[in-house]
């Protein structure tokens, strides 16, 4: 994918999102001028950048959307529900088109018809009002590619200085001289011109120019942000079009210029930096070891070295934390599209729902945030579909007509808690038990033995769905079990609480980010594994004879306590190596239910940078995450409690 296209896609997605946010805010607070301006700008800019690619149906629809927003701004159209629906439909369609364009390099077949339908729906909202006479020639952005080509040299030069560039097309109205306008004076006042071209709007009359008819079209490029130019052009805003000059590569802002946005950096580069910083932390461990050796021969030198080592250590850890911070993104990224989806879902079901989002600014690792969208979407659909009752039922129950759904995020215990609660019908444990029995989720005796809280957990069992009828909204063959699996794959947990008649609350506890973890490396089945040091109570080397058969398994006695011995390799489904003269055991837990795991060898203790399992490893049982070792190989870090639970031994 070329860089221009890549940049276009990134920015367009942001613009679509910005437009959606503003429109939704506008719906809550009709006539909010800042939001209206925001939506207009987003649609306008999107329309402008769309012109660079073969996206004509999208451009035409966006143009109609821009016109409608402009009419709303002038007060010439009413921001009623239909207008908002149509505009949001435009935003939704644009989003789908962009994704299809990103995937296939072109719009889907249906886009043309769809675009035309949207266009006429949008225009229909403007009919009956004094529609703007013919759209001013400046409003179409066919001019941009030609301008960019003509001024390519100047643009390239300015770009090396890293400035944000904006293209202008200014077609002064023919009678502007009578109104006291001097388009050249307007131009002169604009900051940072880097290219200027002036051409006749229409061919000059054969008998020479008419002295009082302005017949020029000005095209220019400025090294200034659009907003600043707009200020200088506000009096002739109807005669100008502005478009940001697409940047082929992330350009750092020039000295002294405030960066309009953050720097875009490829995620892989950030990951590489995080890995390097992590390795630095690990490499420093080696230094500590050397310092200890020097201490035996030269205590004075060792003290000086130790001090220096501690300083390097502090810096390395700070650097590592900072680098990790680069991977953190606000949860708002996963939340952003949800309000629109709630609105659509509720609209489709004829329900009224107020959706509130809190804590968008809370940050978590990018993997976690990106992986959160799907489970949240499913939970939300469930809440709207099954949680919130139909309006009539709510009124009968003495509740407000409009259902409330709240999504909130907060930092908690080094992780992030995301809670989705609704004030709907709630879940009835008795009914859940009945459904679970009917569906054969578990045998009846087991189900009856569950207390009410545990009964709620039945919804997470595979094959469970409480919907009497599968609806188009949430009945898509994905159940709460998929939600739980997705959240656990991110290293998180899901819990559910519900009060019948009052609502349901789903809580996701997620890891805040990748973290440095002390692990013990061990060998099992010929492979190296990491085990979080915190789960190991102690390690022991025993003569073979100390391990005795006990029932079907083996055990040994440690300080008067009999501990079962399990082979780690067997837990992992590997072939254990035969036991030598000495058995190597690590004891888990430390409590009364400790277990001894036999391994084939101990490595050492390492501080590693733990990352949530990704790709194929996601959802692999018994895995906390992976870590990159100094030699570039990956270390699987095991979740001992989980492994033991799965083996039925804990």
């Amino acid at each position, binding site marked *: 994918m070329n860089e221009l296209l890549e940049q276009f896609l990134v920015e367009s997605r942001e613009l679509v999102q910005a437009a959606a946010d503003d429109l939704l805010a506008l719906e809550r607070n009709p006539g909010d001028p800042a939001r209206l301006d925001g939506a207009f700008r987003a649609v306008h800019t999107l329309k402008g950048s769309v012109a660079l690619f073969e996206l004509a149906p999208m451009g035409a629809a966006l143009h109609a959307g821009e016109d409608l927003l402009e009419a709303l701004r002038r007060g010439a159209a009413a921001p009623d529900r239909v207008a908002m629906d149509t505009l949001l439909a435009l935003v939704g369609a644009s989003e789908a088109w962009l994704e299809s364009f990103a995937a296939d390099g072109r719009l889907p077949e249906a886009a043309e018809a769809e675009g035309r339908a949207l266009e006429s729906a949008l225009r229909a909202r403007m009919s009956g009002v004094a529609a703007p006479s013919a759209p001013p020639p400046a409003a179409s952005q066919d001019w941009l590619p030609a301008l960019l080509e003509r001024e390519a040299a100047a643009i390239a030069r300015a770009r090396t200085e890293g400035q944000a560039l904006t293209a202008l097309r200014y077609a*002064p109205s023919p009678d502007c*001289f009578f109104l006291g*306008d*001097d*388009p*050249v*004076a307007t*131009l*002169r006042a604009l900051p940072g*011109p880097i290219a*200027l*071209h*002036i051409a*006749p709007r229409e061919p*000059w009359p054969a008998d*020479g*120019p008419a*002295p*009082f008819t*302005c*017949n*020029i079209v000005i095209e220019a490029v400025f090294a200034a942000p659009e907003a600043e130019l707009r200020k200088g052009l506000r009096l002739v805003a109807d005669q100008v079009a502005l478009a940001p000059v697409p940047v082929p590569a992330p350009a750092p802002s020039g000295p002294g210029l405030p960066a309009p946005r953050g720097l875009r950096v490829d995620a892989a580069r950030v990951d590489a930096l995080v890995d390097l910083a992590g390795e630095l932390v690990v490499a420093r461990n080696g230094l500590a070891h050397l310092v200890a050796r020097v201490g035996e021969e030269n205590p004075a030198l060792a003290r000086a070295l130790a001090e220096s080592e501690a300083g390097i250590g502090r810096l390395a850890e700070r650097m590592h934390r900072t680098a990790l911070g680069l991977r953190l993104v606000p949860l708002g990224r996963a939340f952003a599209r949800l309000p629109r989806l709630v609105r659509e879902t509720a609209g489709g079901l004829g329900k009224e729902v107020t959706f509130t989002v809190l804590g968008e600014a809370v940050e978590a690792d990018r993997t976690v945030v990106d992986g959160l969208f799907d489970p949240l979407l499913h939970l939300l659909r469930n809440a709207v579909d099954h949680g919130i009752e139909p309006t009539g039922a709510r009124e009968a129950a003495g509740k407000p007509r409009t259902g409330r759904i709240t999504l909130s995020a907060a930092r908690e215990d080094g992780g992030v808690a995301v809670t989705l609660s609704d004030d709907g019908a709630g879940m009835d444990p008795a009914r859940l038990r009945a459904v679970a029995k009917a569906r054969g989720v578990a045998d009846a005796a087991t189900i009856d033995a569950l207390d009410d809280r545990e009964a709620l957990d039945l919804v997470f069992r595979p094959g469970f769905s409480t919907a009497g009828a599968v609806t188009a909204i949430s009945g898509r063959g994905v159940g709460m079990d998929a939600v739980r699996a997705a959240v656990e794959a991110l290293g998180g947990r899901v819990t559910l609480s519900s009060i019948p008649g009052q609502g349901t609350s789903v809580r996701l506890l997620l890891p805040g980010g990748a973290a440095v973890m002390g692990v013990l490396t061990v060998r099992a089945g010929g492979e190296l594994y990491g085990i979080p040091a915190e789960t190991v109570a102690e390690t022991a080397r025993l003569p073979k004879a100390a391990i005795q058969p006990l029932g079907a398994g083996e055990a040994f006695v440690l300080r008067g306590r009999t501990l079962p011995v399990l082979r780690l390799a067997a837990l992992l489904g590997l072939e254990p190596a035969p036991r030598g003269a000495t058995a190597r055991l690590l004891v888990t837990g430390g409590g009364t239910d400790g277990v001894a795991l036999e391994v084939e060898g101990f490595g050492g203790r390492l501080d590693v940078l733990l990352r949530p399992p990704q790709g194929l490893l996601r959802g692999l049982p018994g895995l906390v995450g992976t870590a990159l070792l100094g030699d570039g190989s990956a270390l699987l870090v095991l979740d001992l409690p989980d492994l033991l639970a799965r083996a039925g031994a804990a």
Partner: protein
Amino acid sequence: MSVRLDGDVIRLEGPARVEDAEPLIALLQAGERRAVDLDGCGPLHAAVFQVLLALRPPIRGTPADPFDARWLLPLLAPQPGP
């Protein structure tokens, strides 16, 4: 601004206004290939600039206004081709 005929050269002096366009057209159309001297003039009004752009007389001198000198003057240079 004043628009003054000095031999075969039309001199523009001082700041240009919209009403300077009409006499400029008249002077340019009255004499074949009269040059226009912009030395020290400006800032130019769009109406005056438009006349120069349409009739393309040979241009001499440099306008006093830096914007005009840097950005407008090059647009009035003789165009290659027909």
